[in-house]
Structures are given as structure tokens and as C-alpha cells.
């Protein structure tokens, strides 16, 4: 089967993201026919979406926090700001089962002197729930790396709050073992003039489904959501973005790039951007591009922009799936560079633009190394 497919979202975004609840019972068990689930192979979810019991022992979490950042474990308290409200059954089940949350707080006006590393290591196949909170208080500034490895069956929620004038760079790396299954929700709320740079780098795992979403609680919020994924044979890597513009004069950029290499490699990218009636002066752009390197791989890419106000600064989307460009390869090879190396250079270049945006050399270098390893 060939590679390129452009599906069309059939329901307006407003209705797709309408239901949010902490009670798993509010969400029916998905059948696979729902718009939100139609791309996901449910049989491979090991019951995360239905009723598999969720424990807490399947992953180990180690935190190496910058000295300016406070770390605590606490019982999940739904009323606390920044506030998390699940938007599907897996997320609600994880929320109910996680028990305690790992909480990182960047105090008001504190500037972290180095990246904070959160290591999540899968240690058994027990289906496990997790909850992580990153709370950047006003004018705080930090870089956080979420480093996920090992073998796990994991449903987790990441609650992100960036207070007024705060800045957070979160680099989430999913480098799971081949048999891992993860369903993850990242929910961010940005205060006035807050900035979030969110990277999701998905390389390893049998099935990884990550849903990052952004909401704004004050004007001038700026969210940049970047993604890199590299799917090998048999991997299903799915990213579902949602940016809810409900506040005036906020900005969002979504750029996701994927490469697929191998039989039945499958990636899914859903980019939902909703500009509600109040969100005048919104500036948004989303872009997804996939390099399909082999026959038998499939990339689904569905940008979806719903605009409910007449006054936007900019709103656009683009999506393209394609093969490696023969002209690029020819140019490099005409200089003596062998096919394999030319291919590596072009792919590295394809992702390089995004890696450059990480802006933290030590993190960028690690991501580069990981992609090199995928290409080897």
C-alpha cells in the first residue's frame, strides 16, 4: 500500500473537544469508529482505553531538578491551579489511578540555571498510570527534559502551567523499547505574555499516542509546539495537537515532522486549531511534513482549522507527505557522496531545522544523537 493519504476530519473541532471530565465513566469505551480513535489500533492498547487495571509500579520516575526548582510528590488535587481536566477515557482513567503527582515548581521570577531532567523508566509490563505537573510561576523560566525509556504500558498526564510572563521549554523524548505502549496527554495553560516551547520527540515504542493541547488564560500567550517522529517498521506513532484560542492576541505555531522507514510504519498527525469568537488578533500557523522512506509505510496527516472570529492576524495550515527528493540526493551524490550517506544528510537536514529551535545545545545534541541512531 502506498504512502500518502490526506484524510478529512468530519466533525467540527468544537464538538470534538467539548467533553472534559475527571470521571472515566463519562467517556464510553472507544470502539474505533469515533473520529478521535479511528486511526489508533485499539487491540494494541492492552486495555488502556477500556478497563485494564492501572497500577503505579510499572515505571520509575527519577528527577534531577535545577537548584532553583522545587520538587515534591503530592496527592493529585483537581482544584489546584494550573488545573488539569481529562479529555478522553484513557486520560481520565490515568488521572483517577495515578494517586500522586510529581510536581516541579519554578518559583516566581526564578530562572533555572540548567535543564531539569525527568527520567521515566519502564520497569515492568504492569499497566501504569502517571501524573506530572510543571508549574512555572509568573516570570519564572526553565527548561525541562522528559526522558522516557524502557518497556512499559503507560497512561500518563502532564499538566503544564506557565504563569504571566513565564517561559518554559519542555522537551519530551519518547525513546521507549520496541514493545512499549504509551498514551499520553500534555495539557498546557498559558498566562498573560507567557511562552511555551514544547517539543515532542517520538522515536521508540510499539504504539505511542501523544496529545498535546494548549489553552490561554491571558492575552499575549505564545505557544510553539514542535514535533519530530521517526517510525520504523511496525511502529504506530500518533500525535494529536489541539490549540484552543479563546483569548485575544495570542500566538501559536505547530510544526511537526516525521520520517517513516519500514513495513507498516504508521504515523498519524492531527492538528486541531480552534479560534473561538473572543480570540480576536489570533496568529496561528500549523505545518506537518512527513518523509515516507519506504513502500508499505503510511502517514496520515489531518490539519484542521476552525475559525469562529472574523478578526485574525494570521491563520494557516499546510501538510505534505512525500519521498526523499531525488534532486537533493542527486546533488549530493554528484559530489561523490554515497547514496546511504546522502540519504542520511538529507534526513538529518530535514529534522535539523526543528532541532535547532530547541535552543539548548546539550539537549539538541542528545536529540541529534538519537536521530543518528535511528538512521544508522
Amino acid at each position, binding site marked *: 500500500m502506498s504512502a500518502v493519504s490526506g484524510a478529512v476530519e468530519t466533525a467540527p473541532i468544537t464538538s470534538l473537544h467539548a467533553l472534559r471530565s475527571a470521571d472515566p465513566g463519562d467517556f464510553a469505551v472507544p470502539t474505533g469508529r469515533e473520529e478521535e480513535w479511528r486511526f489508533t489500533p485499539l487491540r494494541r492498547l492492552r486495555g488502556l482505553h477500556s478497563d485494564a487495571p492501572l497500577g503505579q509500579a510499572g515505571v520509575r520516575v527519577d528527577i534531577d531538578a535545577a537548584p532553583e526548582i522545587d520538587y515534591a510528590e503530592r496527592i493529585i488535587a483537581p482544584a489546584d491551579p494550573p488545573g488539569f481536566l481529562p479529555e478522553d477515557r484513557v486520560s481520565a482513567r490515568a488521572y483517577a489511578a495515578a494517586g500522586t503527582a510529581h510536581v516541579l515548581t519554578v518559583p516566581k521570577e526564578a530562572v533555572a540555571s540548567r535543564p531539569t531532567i525527568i527520567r521515566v523508566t519502564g520497569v515492568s509490563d504492569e499497566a501504569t498510570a502517571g501524573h506530572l505537573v510543571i508549574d512555572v510561576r509568573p516570570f519564572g523560566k526553565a527548561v525541562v527534559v522528559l526522558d522516557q525509556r524502557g518497556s512499559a504500558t503507560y497512561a500518563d498526564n502532564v499538566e503544564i502551567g506557565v504563569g504571566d510572563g513565564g517561559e518554559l521549554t519542555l522537551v519530551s523524548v519518547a525513546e521507549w523499547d520496541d514493545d512499549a505502549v504509551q498514551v499520553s496527554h500534555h495539557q498546557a495553560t498559558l498566562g498573560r505574555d507567557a511562552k511555551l516551547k514544547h517539543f515532542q520527540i517520538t522515536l521508540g515504542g510499539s504504539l505511542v499516542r501523544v496529545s498535546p493541547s494548549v489553552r490561554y488564560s491571558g492575552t499575549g500567550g505564545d505557544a510553539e509546539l514542535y514535533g519530530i517522529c521517526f517510525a520504523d517498521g511496525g511502529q504506530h506513532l500518533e500525535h494529536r495537537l489541539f490549540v484552543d484560542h479563546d483569548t485575544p492576541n495570542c500566538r501559536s505555531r505547530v510544526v511537526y515532522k516525521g520520517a517513516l522507514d519500514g513495513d507498516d510504519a504508521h504515523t498519524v498527525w492531527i492538528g486541531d486549531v480552534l479560534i473561538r469568537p473572543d480570540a480576536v488578533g489570533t496568529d496561528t500557523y500549523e505545518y506537518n511534513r512527513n518523509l515516507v522512506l519506504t513502500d508499505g509505510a503510511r502517514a496520515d496527516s489531518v490539519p484542521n482549522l476552525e475559525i469562529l472570529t472574523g478578526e485574525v492576524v494570521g491563520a494557516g495550515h499546510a501538510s505534505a507527505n512525500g519521498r526523499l527528493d531525488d534532486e537533493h540526493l542527486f546533488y549530493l551524490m*554528484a*559530489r561523490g557522496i554515497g547514496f546511504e550517506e546522502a540519504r542520511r544528510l538529507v534526513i538529518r537536514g530535514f529534522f535539523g531545522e526543528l532541532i535547532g529551535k530547541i535552543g539548548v545545545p546539550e539537549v539538541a545534541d542528545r536529540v541529534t544523537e538519537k536521530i543518528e541512531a535511528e538512521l544508522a
Partner: protein
Amino acid sequence: MSTLEIRDLHAAVTEADGTLREILRGVNLTVADGETHAIMGPNGSGKSTLAYAVAGHPKYTVTQGSVTLDGEDVLSMTVDARARAGLFLAMQYPVEVPGVSVSNFLRTAVTAVRGEAPKLRVFMKEMRGALGDLSIDPKFAERSLNEGFSGGEKKRHEILQMEMLDPKIAVLDETDSGLDVDALKVVAEGINRFRARPGHGVLLITHYNRILQYVQPDYVHVFVAGRIVEEGGPELAKTLEDEGYEKFTAAAGAKAAS
């Protein structure tokens, strides 16, 4: 001694709909080291096709004839093997490759062609020297390959690669087009440095006599409708510029009609 021999070369281009269209109709040309050949011909006559067919671009299919470099069959080589064997093509429209830096690209290419990686310090020095020779801002080394380069910058960058990769035979496809007079001189100096050293031959494709005033050719070939129809010395270039190609295109048309 190096010799590129093109014998009775026929080649076709694969069009967008997948059909083949014959463009080259029996090209014969020998370029030996120490020689500079100019090919001049009207738009669409197949000059770039000749350059691409020799370099091995996948869009062009050789249907008949042979190309050898020092007796080795070039047509059976992969594109990269042709470059390593000593062929270089400066392209009429150099390709932009996003995210691949000039310095990384050059180092990779130099390593491939020389068969071993130069020491980083030695390489950097060599690259800076080559950039300086062609009046290219050293900042270009960290930019993406050809991305956002002006037409003239792209052409200078092609000559830079030629000088660093040091092929036996260089095919320069309209390297002079899009250059202002200053850039033209810089590029011509690069070509002259290259051909002044022993063991190098140049095949220069151009529309204008202008560059030939700086880079004196030994032979000028007139290329019309997929083949060479006339050969001469440098004076032929002047005649072509003054009189145009009508005489040759008319003759080619008459021949095709007969």
C-alpha cells in the same frame, strides 16, 4: 593524462507523464586534460541534458553510445562513483538542500572523493582559503546548502566545490549566467586556477562570448538539436555572438526535413 570520451551519445528525458523524449541525438566529443572546450547553442538544444547524462541524473536515460573517462565506462557507474572517478558538474540551477550546512556538506564530499577524512583543522583552513579565493563571505559555511543564496552566490559556490574536489574533468553548465562583471571575473579566475594546474580539463557550456574573454577556450562547439554541428577555435564564439545560431538551426531544420 585524463580523457573524457563521449561517443555517439543518445539520451532521452523522462517527461512528467512518464514518457521518454529523445534529446541527445549522437554527440561525439573528446575532452583531454589541459584542454578547455566551450559548447554554445540555443535554448533547449540539449546542452544541460548532455551535462546531466554524463553526470548520471536519474531523469535522463542514455539510449545509445558510450561515455568513458580514461577508458573506464562511466555510464555503468553510479552518480557518486562518477564523481569519485574524477567528473564534476557545476549545475545550471544548483539544488537547495535544507538543513545541510555548506561546511558539513563540503567535508563529507571531500572525504568521499579523497577516500579519507581530512583533519578538521586542515579542512577548515582549506575551506576558508577557498571561500576567500572566490570572495564568498565565510559565514556561508554555516548556512544551509544553496538555500536562499542569490544566483551569483550559487554559481560561485559551485566553483568553490570544483576547486576543493579537484576533479579531472569539470563540466560547467552556464556557470556564467546570472553573474555581474565582478562576480564573473572571480569565477573566471577560479576556473583559470583550476585549469592551470596539470591534469585538468574543462567543458564549459555557455550562451555568451563574455566569459570566454576571461577563460580562453581551445575549442568551440556549436550544439543544435541534440548534437554538435560545427567546431572551431575561439573565433567561432565571436562569430556566433555576432551572427546568432540561425545559420545552424536552419541547416539542422533542413537536414531534419530531408
